[in-house]
């Protein structure tokens, strides 16, 4: 993403607030991978990886990497006490059975109903869905972290996705550099604003109508 590290960290920090003690959490690549840094050190969270890890810890120091201990993106990680290894069928058994409490993913587009489109740019990039469909369809809560607009300036939150869907009506929360949106019963709500943005800016950069609650929280950091 074409976003500075400060903005990326801000989004990640806000996403970290959604994590509760004891949760099982799956993080996508990019901004989601920054989330653990912002968790209280005494919080017990089990990070899940599609390749068969539960209990991923932070990246090892340079030189301390183990080529056989990597996350689903292929980058070295560590294992916390209580962690375990298993095959990919069990990794997805957990997902399909609703044992993953939360997944935080990037996306290309999200519709006001929570449709997720994050796996294909027709005619350009067809990387494959990886584990995104299972996670989007089956994680108990799905949070999308992404830019408010794409590189061409087009809103990524839209009334209806123009890109092929990963999964329909699955997103619960969207966090961008501007704001936090909640999707409840098929409706998009503006929930919080990052400083210095105002409601008008958010409305202008959103490709669909937004429901405004009576109170909109301002995020200070």
């Amino acid at each position, binding site marked *: 993403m074409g976003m500075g590290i400060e903005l990326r960290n801000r989004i990640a920090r806000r996403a970290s607030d959604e994590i509760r003690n004891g949760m099982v959490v799956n993080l996508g690549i990019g901004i989601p991978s920054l989330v653990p840094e912002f968790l209280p050190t005494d919080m017990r969270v089990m990070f899940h990886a*599609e390749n068969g890890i539960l209990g991923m810890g932070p990246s090892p120091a340079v030189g301390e990497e183990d080529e056989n201990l990597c996350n689903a*993106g292929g980058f070295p990680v560590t294992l916390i006490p209580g962690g375990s*290894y298993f*095959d990919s*069928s069990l990794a997805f058994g957990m997902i*399909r059975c609703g044992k993953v409490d939360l997944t935080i993913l990037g996306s290309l587009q999200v519709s006001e109903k929570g449709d997720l489109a994050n796996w294909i740019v027709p005619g350009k990039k*067809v990387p494959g869905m990886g584990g995104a469909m299972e996670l989007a369809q089956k994680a108990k809560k799905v949070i999308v972290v992404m830019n408010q607009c794409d590189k061409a300036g087009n809103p990524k939150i839209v009334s209806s996705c123009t890109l*092929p869907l990963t*999964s329909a009506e699955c997103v619960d929360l969207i966090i961008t550099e501007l704001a936090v949106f909640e999707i409840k019963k098929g409706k998009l709500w503006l929930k919080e604003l990052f400083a210095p943005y105002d409601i008008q800016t958010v409305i202008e950069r959103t490709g669909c109508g937004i429901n405004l609650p009576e109170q909109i929280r301002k995020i200070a950091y």
Partner: protein
Amino acid sequence: MENLFGKIAEVDQVMSFFHDNMVLMFGGFGGVGSPPLLIDEILEKGVKDLTLIGNDTGFPHIGIGRIVSQGRAKKVIASHIGSNPIAGKLMTEGKMEVEFSPQGILAERIRAGGTGLPAILTDIGLDNEMVSNGKSQFELNGKKYLVETALKADVAIVYAKKADSFGNLVYDKSARNTNPLVAMAGAITIAEVEEIVPVGYLDPEEIVTPGVFVDYVIQSGGVNWKWAWESN
């Protein structure tokens, strides 16, 4: 080394199983847990028009990516090719067919092949045309499901930490990934391992793949590619 079951072999002895147009299944996830020696030998043998089945196409110079990048596959069944741009290019140019399967469903299809189940039902990807296209549907208790068929291979290649002479396998950390599933799904399964030990040297509780699924065990020389995260 004792070779009571005749499964411990030199790599030359198993190369006759690899041929043009075969269905080859491989263990590994982003190259982690893919067998380096076997991949290089397959490449060197020059077999082509392969149908490859595995989680992903690795990176251009890592894992099965080495074979894919050389245009040796006519078809790939995988969940992801994004880390190998050459795979994407071959697909776009129509030189390689790619069948995408959601990652966990791909794993289950391989497991089904390895455990003698013809198919499983699932709702993953039901509303996604690229997944559901051409697949049968089945209605159960008023809900529709996709019928996802089992995957098997002429030969399955896996990478493990240790094998005993019966072919019992233990894996190393996240290099386990798809390997225990792939190990079951080959008409012939060849395990490349870091260490070969006599029977009785593995704790029977820690064995992940019982040796009955493994036909040949090959001594590995270890990973010979540079990982994406390694500097220089």
